[in-house]
């Protein structure tokens, strides 16, 4: 039996070597082979973590339930993202092709590290690494607008990461006699109960604001929206889901740490406020969105708002939050892939110039409609279950005002998404005659159907193992 330490270390070393070899050898065929091997290695590593639950590796990483769950989602979406990436960058120069895949491998590796990290500082370092990797991907198209989005993303994320670090330092004030390793989540739990609540509150607020840049929550949401709008569609799909999950996980871990302390009501209020404001802002912008990808980017913000609200409510809201973020990952990835294909077919992301998609590309239009059902939480979407649980938790916890306001805002979101997507699918473009820009092979849409199929399947059947996994994740939180 190979030691888990060796497995993890090998994974990191192989990832590094894969990224380095692609960066040095500007050959498309070579890059494709290495990337496919990397995807296989990542899937293998993820499978390994399933069979070694709770194991601590190299002192800084633990295969805990939530880490493994998010790693699995990452592994699945890496396969689809690499596939769509191959299509997207196939006409690029070998150098551009190499940079794209080097950065993608670096991003996947950094996110894997962030999911499995068992200490605050280690999470922070890997989150920092994701910023560096994703910057190269956002800037892939080398346009002026891509440069602006990259600059803003890196700048605001850097400030966010600095703020998160200040939060960690505040936690450091409470554990003055410990060394760095004591900032591991398991050891801080005990110390947090004895710590000064004021320091914990400040630490939580800084960590929340800091990691909001990744999760896309108000007030640090603007750059994520810009980045998701500008990045290549496969990357938008990736960072709108797995990278947002990194931000969520970082906040969730700190929330779990402090949940046994007296600041739990404070954290809940802050999360509710942040989530509700995210929902409010995103629904407002979705109503005026004129850019198809930007609309989806605001939709991601809206869903993260729902997750924050669910977490802030507590009770069954915890379960709903995790379920919602899992389902959102599959749905949003599929939608971004599909919007990317719609650009190839219609030659535009502008809503007014889009239309007649059903005639131009029926398979893609069907996938888009299926994605619309999923994201708006209309049955048989699995997100219907998670959103219903969120609303139910509001009733159980007697948050009636939040219930009404959330329901109203969700109606706005549904209206915005339905009118826009139905316009793309069925209506004629306003002003310009629609014509086929580029043909797409329907087989390229199969991945979207699979992803939406998973979301629909989870509406009807939640396998016992999956349910137990989610229940295990939230079992340590207060009832």
């Amino acid at each position: 039996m190979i030691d888990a330490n060796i497995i993890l270390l090998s994974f990191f070393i192989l990832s590094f070597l894969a990224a380095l070899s692609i960066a040095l050898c500007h050959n498309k065929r070579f890059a494709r082979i290495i990337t496919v091997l990397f995807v296989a290695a990542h899937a293998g590593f993820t499978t390994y973590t399933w069979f070694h639950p709770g194991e601590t590796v190299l002192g800084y990483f633990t295969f805990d339930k939530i880490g493994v769950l998010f790693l699995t989602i990452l592994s699945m979406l890496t396969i689809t993202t690499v596939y769509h990436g191959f299509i997207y960058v196939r006409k690029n120069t070998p150098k551009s092709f190499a940079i794209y895949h080097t950065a993608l491998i670096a991003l996947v590796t950094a996110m894997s590290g962030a999911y499995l990290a068992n200490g605050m500082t280690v999470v922070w370092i890997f989150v920092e690494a994701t910023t560096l990797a994703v910057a190269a991907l956002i800037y892939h198209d080398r346009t002026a607008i891509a440069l602006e989005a990259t600059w803003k993303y890196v700048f605001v994320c850097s400030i966010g990461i600095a703020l998160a670090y200040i939060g960690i330092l505040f936690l450091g004030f409470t554990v003055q006699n410990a060394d760095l390793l004591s900032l591991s989540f398991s050891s801080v739990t005990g110390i947090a109960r004895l710590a000064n609540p004021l320091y914990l509150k400040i630490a939580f607020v800084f960590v929340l604001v800091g990691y909001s840049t990744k999760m896309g929550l108000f007030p640090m949401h603007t750059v994520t929206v810009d980045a998701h709008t500008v990045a290549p569609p496969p990357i938008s799909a990736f960072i709108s889901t797995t990278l947002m999950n990194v931000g969520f996980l970082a906040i969730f871990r700190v929330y779990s740490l402090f949940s046994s302390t007296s600041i739990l009501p404070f954290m809940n209020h802050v999360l509710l406020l942040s989530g509700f404001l995210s929902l409010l802002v995103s629904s407002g912008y979705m109503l005026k969105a004129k850019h198809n990808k930007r609309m989806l980017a605001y939709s991601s913000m809206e869903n993260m708002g729902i997750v924050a609200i669910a977490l802030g409510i507590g009770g069954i809201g915890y379960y709903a939050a995790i379920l919602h973020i899992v389902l959102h990952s599959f749905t949003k990835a599929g939608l971004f892939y599909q919007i990317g294909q719609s650009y190839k077919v219609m030659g535009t992301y502008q809503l007014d110039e889009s239309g007649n998609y059903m005639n131009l590309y029926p398979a893609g239009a069907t996938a888009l409609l299926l994605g619309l059902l999923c994201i708006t939480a209309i049955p048989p979407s699995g997100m219907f279950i998670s959103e219903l649980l969120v609303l139910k938790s509001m009733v159980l916890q007697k948050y009636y005002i939040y219930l009404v306001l959330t329901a109203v805002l969700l109606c706005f979101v549904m209206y915005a998404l339905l009118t826009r997507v139905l316009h793309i699918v069925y209506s004629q473009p306003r002003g310009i005659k629609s014509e086929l820009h580029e043909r797409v092979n329907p087989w390229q849409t199969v991945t979207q159907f699979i992803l939406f199929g998973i979301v629909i399947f989870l509406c009807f059947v939640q396998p016992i193992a999956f349910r137990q996994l989610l229940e295990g994740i939230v079992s340590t939180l207060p009832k």
Partner: protein
Amino acid sequence: MSIPLVIMFAVTLIYFSITERFRIFVNLIIIQGVLLFALAFLELKTITLSTLLFVASETLVFKVIVVPYLLLRIIRKTGVERVFEKALPSFYSLLFVTFGLLLSIVVSFSMNTTPVNMIYFIVSLFALYTGLFLIISHKKVFSHLMGFLVIENSVLLLSMAIGSQIPMLINIGILLDIFVSVLILGIFVMRLKQYAHELTMLKDD
């Protein structure tokens, strides 16, 4: 010995709020780098050679030489020498920053329950406030960059408030500086020169 240095650091922050010339911004960053090195040297009680080298390379080499060099290159390339447009006149900026100093003092004293070096704590909070204020109150990208560098310095100073007992945290903070600053400045120097004024292409219509 360290208290006068920390106070000097606070003075540079006040100067940041009223100055309009980019070269003075750069000089202030250099001064802050030197002060941070001196403070780190004085505060690290169990300093080892490796830690000293790490801190020296971060503060002296990086903050005093590399970053100012890149900043001066940006000034030369863009040809923008001073702040033409601010959201607030200098007098009001001064008022806001002075208010920030008072706020930092009040907050720090109200949190005086753990053995944290108070003066460091006050000035690092003040630096954080000033950095955010610079970003909000200025319209040019270069000024935002200055705000970010001031926030970075505030993080380093805050690390020092507990840094004598957890030196590893300082090293982690230094990693932040090296990774991000080089990337941000790199992008800025290489590509952004034509957009040195304002970045407003991405917006909701």
